[in-house]
C-alpha cells in the first residue's frame, strides 16, 4: 500500500549474516544464477526473459530511413529502454533515478558500442537508404539484476529477428514483402552478455552473482562485466560503490566466463525451439 521504503534493518542484517556463513537468502550458492527462462516469438524479434522474479521483454523492429550524413554506408541502431511503472510501483521513466538511467544506458552501450550488430550490412543504397533497427526493451517485473536480464533479452531478440529481403538493381533497391520472399536474419558479429556481481561487507569481501532485489538494496558495490562467446571482454562497468581490488575483478571475470557459455547455450536452445 505504501511506496517502497527499502529493506528493514532486520532483513539487511539477516542477509549479511547468512552471507558470512556462505548462503544466500534464497538458498543459492554465491555463483549461481537464478532460473533463467528465455522464450522467443512468435513474432520475429520478440524475446521475453525471466530471470528469477525479474521479467524483461525485448522487441526488435526495422524501418527504411536515410542514413546519418557523416555515415552514409552504415545502418542505424536505436535503443529504447524505459523502466515502466509495471516493473515496480513508483518507477517512472520521466522521473527515473540515476541508477535507473544507468541501467538503461548500460544495456544500450553494451549492444551499440561493442559493435555486435554489423551496421555496414544494414546499408541498402549508400547515402540514401539504410535499415534502422529499433530495439525496445520493456521491464515488466523488477526482481533485481535488470541489466543481465535485459542484455539477454536484447541479444535473443536480435538473433531471432528477421528483416525483409532486399535486391539491389543498379541504382534501385527492391524491398521484398515477407510473404514473397523469406525474411533474412541480421548480421550479428558476436553476442555480448552482461554478468553482474554484488559486493557486501565493509571491505567488499563478500560477493554474489546475479543479485536479487533485496541483495541489490543491501550491496555496497556492484560490478558488471560483459563477455561474448569468443571469451572477449566487451565492457567493464563499476560505477561508484566501495573500491574493489584487481584480484576480485579477476575472480569475477573467471566466473563470468563460465556463466556466459551457459547463457549462450540457453539462448541457442530458445531460438531453436521458437522455429521448430
Amino acid at each position, binding site marked *: *500500500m505504501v511506496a517502497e521504503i527499502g529493506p528493514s534493518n532486520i532483513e539487511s542484517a539477516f542477509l549479511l549474516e547468512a552471507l558470512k556463513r556462505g548462503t544466500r537468502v534464497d538458498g543459492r550458492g554465491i555463483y549461481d544464477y537464478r532460473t533463467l527462462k528465455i522464450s522467443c516469438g512468435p*513474432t520475429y524479434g*520478440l524475446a521475453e526473459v525471466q530471470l528469477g522474479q525479474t521479467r524483461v*521483454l525485448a522487441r526488435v523492429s526495422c524501418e527504411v530511413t536515410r542514413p546519418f550524413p557523416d555515415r552514409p554506408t552504415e545502418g542505424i541502431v536505436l535503443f529504447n529502454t524505459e523502466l515502466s511503472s*509495471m*516493473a515496480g510501483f513508483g518507477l517512472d521513466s520521466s522521473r527515473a533515478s540515476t541508477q535507473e538511467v544507468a541501467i538503461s544506458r548500460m544495456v544500450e552501450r553494451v549492444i551499440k558500442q561493442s559493435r555486435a550488430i554489423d551496421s555496414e550490412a544494414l546499408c541498402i543504397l549508400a547515402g540514401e537508404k539504410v535499415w534502422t533497427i*529499433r530495439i525496445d526493451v520493456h521491464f515488466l*517485473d523488477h526482481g533485481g539484476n535488470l541489466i543481465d536480464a535485459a542484455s539477454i533479452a536484447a541479444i535473443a531478440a536480435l538473433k531471432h529477428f528477421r528483416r525483409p529481403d532486399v535486391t539491389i538493381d543498379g541504382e534501385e533497391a527492391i524491398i521484398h514483402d515477407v510473404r514473397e520472399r523469406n525474411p533474412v536474419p541480421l548480421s550479428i558479429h558476436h553476442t555480448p552478455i552482461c554478468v553482474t556481481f554484488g559486493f557486501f561487507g565493509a571491505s567488499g569481501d563478500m560477493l554474489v552473482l546475479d543479485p536479487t532485489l533485496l541483495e541489490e538494496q543491501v550491496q555496497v558495490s556492484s560490478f558488471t562485466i560483459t563477455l561474448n562467446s569468443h571469451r572477449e571482454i566487451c565492457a567493464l562497468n563499476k560505477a561508484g560503490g566501495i573500491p574493489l581490488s584487481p584480484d576480485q575483478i579477476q575472480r569475477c571475470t573467471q566466473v563470468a566466463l563460465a556463466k556466459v557459455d551457459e547463457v549462450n547455450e540457453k539462448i541457442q536452445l530458445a531460438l531453436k525451439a521458437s522455429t521448430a
Partner: protein
Amino acid sequence: MSRPDRREASQLRALNCSLGQLNRADGSAQFSAGNTSVVSGIYGPVEAKVYEEKLDRAVVEVKFRPDIGAPTTKDKWMESAIRNTFEREILAHLHPRTLVQIVIQLREGDGSVDSAAINATSLALVDAGIPLKCMITAATCAVLPDDTTVVDPTQEEIDAARSTHTFAFASGSSTGPLYVDSRGDFTMDEYNHCYELCALATERVLAFMRTAIEGKVTKEAKISAA
C-alpha cells in the same frame, strides 16, 4: 470470401491468458488473441499523491505502452478510453484516497489491440482483487470493402476495412455497451450488425475468462488446503 487465416466471419482467434505472472504488481494478466498479445499490471489500492487523491473514492490511472517506439498520442487516447471504461466499474468508494494504477504493455500487435487491452485489464483487476461491479469484455468487428463483417480482425483486415468497431460490454447487464469506438465509413445497419456480432463475441470471451479464473482459484484453493 475467405479470411487470410481461414477463419469463419464470426470466429475469434485462439484465446490465451495467464494470470498472476508478475511478482511486484498486485495483480497481472497476459491476454492474447492470435498474434495480438497484451500484458496488464495493476498496482492498487496504493497511496495516492495528495494533489491527485479524491476524498471519497479511489483514483484510477492508466498507462499504455506500445510494443515499438515511444508512446504517442494514439496511446494516450487508448489510456483515456480504458480509464473511462473502468473508472465507473471499479467500486472506488470502497477505497477512498487511494490510487488504482493500471499499466498496460503491448507485446505484439496484430489487430484488435484495444479489445485485447480491455480484456487483459479486466482479468488483471480480478487477479489484483480490486472490487468490480462486473466483468468487462470487449470485441472488435471490421466491415470489409465487400460488405462482409468479420469479428476479431487481424491488422491486415483492419488496414483493408471500410470501418472498424470495438464494443465493450458489462457482463450480466442488459444495458448498452460501456465503450464504443467506431471508425470509418459505415451505415447504421452495418453498425447494428457489428453491435450484435460483438455482443455474441464478448459472451464467448467472458466464458473463456470465467474458465481461466475458475482454474486459478481452484489451484490456489488446493495449495492453501494442502
